């Protein structure tokens, strides 16, 4: 049996080609967060941090939950060991009406396990985003052009809204946009100076590569930027700024699973996620999770599987290289505006670029084209023209007829009321 290279105790696992005993592995993972903790403003006695966790219909919910419990464990341990300073952690669960049931039991187990009082929970129903259908606009993307007009579709629930998107990859993009927007608004409304995202190295690498693949390369630096801002339409236009960190950006997916296993953190997982954990990490059944039919998979799933395979085959350095490359990217100089759909800065002119590289006119030789052909080339789309970013133009081209989005001015104060209506607070737990 190999021995741990650090303490000569019998090793229980191998990570990054190094054998580790349990204690050294835990120390190794926790040690990786030291830099992030040092960069937080711990001069104050209490560091207020927001940890968002998606717990909705997305495929990433399970991963998000796993990562979040590892992050919480690390933060709580730091908090207990830090002299004078400690964290006040607020977990923000992004849920749909159907998925919120398990969260309170998770919260109770968490408090019992750590005996840590400085932890709060907020549950936000994503239905808040649709805002009772009032500001929804129907978005129509056709022939590289986007138009918008007030939506005629009424959505009963968030599930109803999201299932109106027929393409699964587009649905993932939409969910990311919603999460990204809602977290920012929540941080502003509750004045959080710091948001800690629980994405692991593998998750970030997937995000970087999937953004490249989706024509959203320009967004990478905006997502990974430590200093985030939100435009506020108050009496006078201003910006809300907060810090955003990815403390687990140096931790591999396999290490997340090992960490959970060694510390028995699976007890914290809601029952259905516990089952998923067992299936995915079972060496025999784990292979069942391989994507069998590429055509039914989403772009993110394919890229995620690619990185998981690299990690398992000893190429974990490539995953870290991608993350490090992504963090060296910057926003291009020049005139940029905000995409009304995803909210990221964009150079504009995406439609023109596409028109320039793709010819859509018929060959005039031989038979003359029928008069009806011209309407196809220059269709008069109803609604107002909408200048959206290249990534959204491509992604929402396959969104379906019902695709709607709340196009609005930057966040206004009235949204506080809307969000508050959908925040399920538990007075007993405060």
């Amino acid at each position: 049996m190999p021995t741990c290279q650090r303490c000569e105790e019998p090793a229980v696992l191998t990570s990054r080609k190094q054998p580790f005993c349990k204690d050294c592995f835990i120390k190794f993972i926790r040690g990786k967060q030291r830099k992030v903790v040092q960069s937080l403003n711990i001069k104050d006695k209490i560091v207020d941090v927001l940890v968002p966790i998606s717990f909705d219909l997305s495929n990433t919910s399970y991963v998000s939950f796993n990562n979040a419990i590892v992050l919480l464990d690390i933060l709580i341990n730091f908090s207990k060991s830090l002299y004078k300073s400690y964290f006040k952690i607020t977990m923000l669960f992004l849920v749909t009406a159907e998925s919120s049931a398990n969260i309170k039991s998770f919260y109770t187990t968490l408090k019992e396990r750590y005996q840590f009082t400085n932890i709060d929970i907020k549950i936000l129903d994503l239905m808040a985003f649709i805002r009772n259908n009032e500001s929804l606009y129907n978005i129509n993307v056709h022939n590289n052009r986007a138009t918008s007009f007030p939506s005629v579709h009424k959505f009963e629930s968030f599930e109803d809204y999201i299932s109106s998107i027929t393409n699964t990859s587009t649905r993932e993009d939409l969910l990311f946009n919603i999460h990204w927007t809602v977290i920012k608004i929540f941080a502003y409304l509750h004045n959080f100076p710091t948001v800690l995202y629980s994405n692991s190295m593998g998750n970030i690498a997937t995000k970087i590569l999937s953004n490249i693949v989706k024509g959203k390369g320009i967004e990478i630096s905006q997502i990974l930027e430590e200093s985030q801002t939100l435009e506020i339409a108050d009496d006078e236009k201003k910006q809300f700024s907060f810090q955003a960190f990815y403390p687990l950006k140096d931790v591999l997916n396999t290490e997340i699973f090992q960490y959970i296993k060694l510390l028995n953190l699976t007890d914290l997982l809601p029952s259905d996620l516990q089952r998923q954990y067992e299936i995915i990490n079972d060496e025999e059944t784990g292979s069942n999770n391989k994507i069998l039919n590429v055509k039914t998979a989403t772009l993110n799933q394919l890229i995620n599987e690619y990185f998981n395979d690299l990690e398992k085959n000893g190429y974990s350095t490539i995953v870290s290289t991608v993350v490090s490359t992504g963090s060296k990217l910057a926003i291009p100089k020049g005139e940029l505006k905000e995409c009304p759909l995803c909210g990221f800065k964009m150079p504009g002119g995406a439609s023109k670029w596409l028109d320039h590289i793709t010819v859509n006119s018929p060959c005039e030789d031989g038979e003359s084209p029928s008069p009806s052909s011209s309407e196809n080339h220059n269709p008069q789309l109803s609604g107002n023209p909408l200048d959206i970013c290249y990534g959204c133009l491509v992604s929402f081209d396959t969104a379906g007829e019902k695709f709607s989005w709340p196009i609005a001015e930057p966040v206004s104060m009235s949204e506080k009321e809307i969000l508050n209506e959908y925040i399920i607070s538990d007075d007993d737990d405060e």
Partner: protein
Amino acid sequence: MTNDEKTKTKKGNLKLCELCKSRKQAIKRPKNLQKICKECFYHVFETEIHQTIVSNNLFFPGEKVAIGASGGKDSTVLAYVLKLLNERYNYGLELVLLSIDEGIVGYRDDSLATVQRNKIQYNLPLEIVSYRDLYNWTMDEIVSCAGIRNSCTYCGVLRRQALDRGAAKLGINHVVTGHNADDMAETVLMNILRGDLARLENSTTICTKSSGSPIKRSKPFKYIYQKEIVLYAHYKKLDYFSTECTYAPEAFRGTARVLMKNLEKIRSSCITDIIYSGENLVLKEKKKRQQFKKKQNANGSKEPTEVEIRNDGSISLGKHGFKDGNRCTRCGYLSSNTICKACMLLEGLEKSKAKIMLENDGVTDGAAKLTRTLESLTF
């Protein structure tokens, strides 16, 4: 009524081209999945290349241009289309086929035979430059000496130089190559996966040029999908050589290629999307390190007296030593070091070369020779 229904009902059950609405659908365009007729496909394919050439000012009237011709589908279509567009739009170009003979028995000799036929078919002059003449090595010898793993590294460096030298020999300052959108997208992905920051920002540049070199290289097929090139060559019945190089690409590049092909199955536009991302990738400005003032030398200049000798034996010329147009001291080719990359690689090869060789020994012939021999056998 949807477009599909319109095209269906126009002439009974016959499905009509989505662009001209008058001819029968023949092709589903890999780029945007549009179902179009052959004529419209030729039209959009050729016009897109023309637009790329015009908008990027790739050529000027009277320019002498060398087409990097390997005999493969990309370069064959490039030669055909460039000749066609040159005549159609009066570019005023003088086109020449330029081939490199890497010396891969059973592969390159067959593909060069295709280029020889193309020379006659398109009535274009042809110049062949061989590794044997330039470097006194063939790729088969290099692989037998250095192994198959690094074959692309050697071949890439030597071919780039051979193309430049071939062009210079013909008095040409512009070489066009058949790199297509798939190659561009793959380069972006590889640069991200390898963390090649030096190349990342320029992954999708249509025109490249070695520093100080008068010879520029350009890629008119930058936005053309590989599948469309195959379709075009097929329908136009072009004469091309379709076997891939036997010294297959490295394993890691292969995984990225498979990933890209799978992604394309889900979203056909992803190749274009990757190029768009590549065009907008910008690196953060490097943090300036604190510079310490150098002490003046005995002769009064501020230049350092020490010269860095790298692990591979090359000598750094430093920030002030490199001048545009600096040349290799051995072969005279442009280089940022005293010895160019090709000479450095060849020096390493010379060291590990067998001292004594048998006459007419076929042991260095690669796998392609064996394949060709087997193909010619019959029962």
